[in-house]
């Protein structure tokens, strides 16, 4: 038992479980204290650490702390602390408690060294995260259910894959898996669902904007990056991940341009950023895997920051629809400034965090000579600046003044945003501490004159394109709308097909019964005519007639006999 509790994730899980029983001040304190304690615990563990335990004849590994796990566990704990600070004033009991358990399970999953332990924490994140969404009220019931079904499906695939894998190898250890056999594909699909691969992605854009202003920030940090970690652990260098990742970077940005709900825009751009990490895993070189880990680290921070600013806007202005916002910089200047820091970071401006992490992946792609993928990533880099870097701050805080006047975000939210913004700028200006904890030794200098210049050209001319398109009126205006995505298949097409199939079955059943009844009626009618009192078989006949027929038959016999 003790072996299991050595995982720092359990500090958060335990805190989440007792938290609802405590008075408000202690609840709020735990939200920040528990991640801090778990962080200290993680920091104090020697690297590498391996703790094993026997269970049902298998050697399980409740705790494996190696460089790859450390980066992800550390950033998860930082994110948990920042989210805790951001939701400090939430009065409800469900959301903070579920958030703590969710973050703890994610940390524990990253530090799990075998597939069975991973599965348990994998499902715990699904369960806890759906509670985070549900905490936003009864309006989220259906979207929560859809989200939960998809997450549990991922867990079931992982379980099936793990069973198949252990049967083949006899070892539950979670290391490189690769796409060999059924087990490899099942686990790949399980990871792919949580990593929001194309066509498996819509749970993300559906569920994240449905959570509360604070809940979305929590959701944005853990599930997808846990999947990225799992892919990096199990499928590094798997070629098919390169095209998958490239598609992931490119297609969500088209949706992000026309989406009106700004938190959904961020969900699409989250999907796009995951694509960069997936490409890094697929390339599988030391540089690219470092890039994936570094990008996950910086991405969690700037994405959380962007979701925090939009959460603050939702809280104060009552909406995050681009069509209804504008001019908020007058009411929320600090939030606007933090949003711009997040936007600059995700756009990979030099001196901001995205620049020092995304460069690793782009360079690794170029070194492989994969020029088509490199061009797609460059297109996605320009695109992400366009929709996340410009669109989010512009339509929320500037554009034309909507007239909405509200208060600035509460102090705890400003503090959380401020710390996150400082981290984004700090990592961008001084990346060495991050580079030092990456899985492999880093021999990379992001700040070369040529690199800074080309990145600035890309961003400046993307901004130029936005300006020209806005001034000429070509840029699509923000409209109250929803856009069809792949979820249309299971929200509309499949239910419609099922309803049509049901209607067809019902009417076929009716018609069959009708036909049978008609045939039965007709048969009954004929039989009745034959057997009824007036029927043929009941009719009386004259004796003379019978005698005439008998003689006729006898005559026929006689005739045949002689013939």
């Amino acid at each position, binding site marked *: 038992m003790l072996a299991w509790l050595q995982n720092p994730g359990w500090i958060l899980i335990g805190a989440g479980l007792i938290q609802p029983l405590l008075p408000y001040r202690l609840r709020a304190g735990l939200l920040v204290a528990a991640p801090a304690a778990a962080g200290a615990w993680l920091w104090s563990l020697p690297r590498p650490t391996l703790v094993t335990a026997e269970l049902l004849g298998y050697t399980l590994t409740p705790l494996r702390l190696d460089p790859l796990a450390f980066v992800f566990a550390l950033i998860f704990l930082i994110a948990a602390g920042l989210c805790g600070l951001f939701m400090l*004033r939430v*009065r*409800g009991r469900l959301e903070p408690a579920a958030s703590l358990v969710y973050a703890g399970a994610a940390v524990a999953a990253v530090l799990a060294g075998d597939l069975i332990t991973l599965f348990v924490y994998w499902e715990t994140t699904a369960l806890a995260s759906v509670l985070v969404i549900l905490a936003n009220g009864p*309006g*989220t019931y259906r*979207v929560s259910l859809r989200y939960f079904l998809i997450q549990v499906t991922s867990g079931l695939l992982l379980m099936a894959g793990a069973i198949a894998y252990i049967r083949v190898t006899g070892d539950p250890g979670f290391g490189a898996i690769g796409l060999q056999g059924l087990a490899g594909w099942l686990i790949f699909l399980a990871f792919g669902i949580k990593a929001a691969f194309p066509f498996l992605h819509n749970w993300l854009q559906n569920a994240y*904007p*449905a959570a509360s202003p604070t809940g979305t920030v929590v959701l944005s940090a853990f599930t997808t990056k846990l999947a990225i970690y799992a892919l990096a652990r199990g499928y590094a260098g798997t070629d098919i991940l390169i095209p998958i990742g490239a598609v992931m970077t490119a297609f969500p940005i*088209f*949706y992000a*341009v*026309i989406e009106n709900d700004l938190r959904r825009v961020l969900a699409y751009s989250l999907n796009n950023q995951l694509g960069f990490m997936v490409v890094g895993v697929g390339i599988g070189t030391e540089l690219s895997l470092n890039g994936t880990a570094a990008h996950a680290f910086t991405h969690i921070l700037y994405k959380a920051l962007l979701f925090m600013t939009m959460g603050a806007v939702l809280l*104060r202005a*009552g909406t995050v629809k681009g069509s209804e916002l504008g*001019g908020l*910089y007058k*009411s929320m200047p600090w939030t606007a400034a933090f949003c711009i820091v997040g936007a600059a970071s995700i756009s990979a401006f030099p001196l901001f965090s995205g620049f020092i992490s995304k460069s690793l992946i782009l*360079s690794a792609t*170029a070194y492989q000579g994969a*020029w088509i993928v490199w061009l797609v990533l*460059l297109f996605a880099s*320009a*695109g992400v600046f366009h929709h996340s870097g410009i669109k989010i701050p512009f339509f929320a805080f*500037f554009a034309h*003044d*909507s*007239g*909405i*006047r*509200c*208060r600035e975000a509460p102090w705890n939210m400003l503090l959380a945003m401020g710390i996150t913004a400082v981290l984004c700028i700090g990592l961008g200006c001084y990346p060495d501490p991050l580079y030092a904890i990456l899985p492999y030794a880093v021999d990379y200098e992001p700040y*070369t*004159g*040529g*690199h800074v*210049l*080309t*990145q*600035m*050209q*890309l961003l*400046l*001319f*993307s*901004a*130029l*394109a936005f*300006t020209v*398109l806005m001034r000429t009126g*070509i840029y*699509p205006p923000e*409209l*109250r*709308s*929803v*856009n*069809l*995505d792949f979820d249309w298949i299971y*929200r*509309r097409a499949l239910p419609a097909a099922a309803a049509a199939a049901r209607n067809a079955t019902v009417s076929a059943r009716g018609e069959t019964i009708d036909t049978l009844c008609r045939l039965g009626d007709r048969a009954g009618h004929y039989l009745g005519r034959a057997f009824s009192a007036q029927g043929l078989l009941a009719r009386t006949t004259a004796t003379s007639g019978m005698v005439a027929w008998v003689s006729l038959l006898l005559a026929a016999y006689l005739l045949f006999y002689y013939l």
Partner: protein
Amino acid sequence: MSERPDNAPRIDPDPGKGRLEHPRNVDRIVHGLYALCALSVLLEFVVHRHETLSFAGWFGFYAWFGFVACVGLVLAARVLRRVLMRSEDYYDDGDAS
């Protein structure tokens, strides 16, 4: 989150022009952007750059790629919107999303 009712946003019926919305200032920002764009391209004569992929070394590659990519993105998204856009209550199943 429990908030006091006085936190409800109020609507300014006649939002005056802020400093950032004044047409003259908007023009200044835009002209500044033009200048920066021009400067970034001119700097290529000075700054040495080393590209792994040969075509990325063409003069102003990142500049025109960024511009063309974004214009293409928006034009494609406009077409996409015609196909994909539905009214806000399209999935009206009592859902928050």
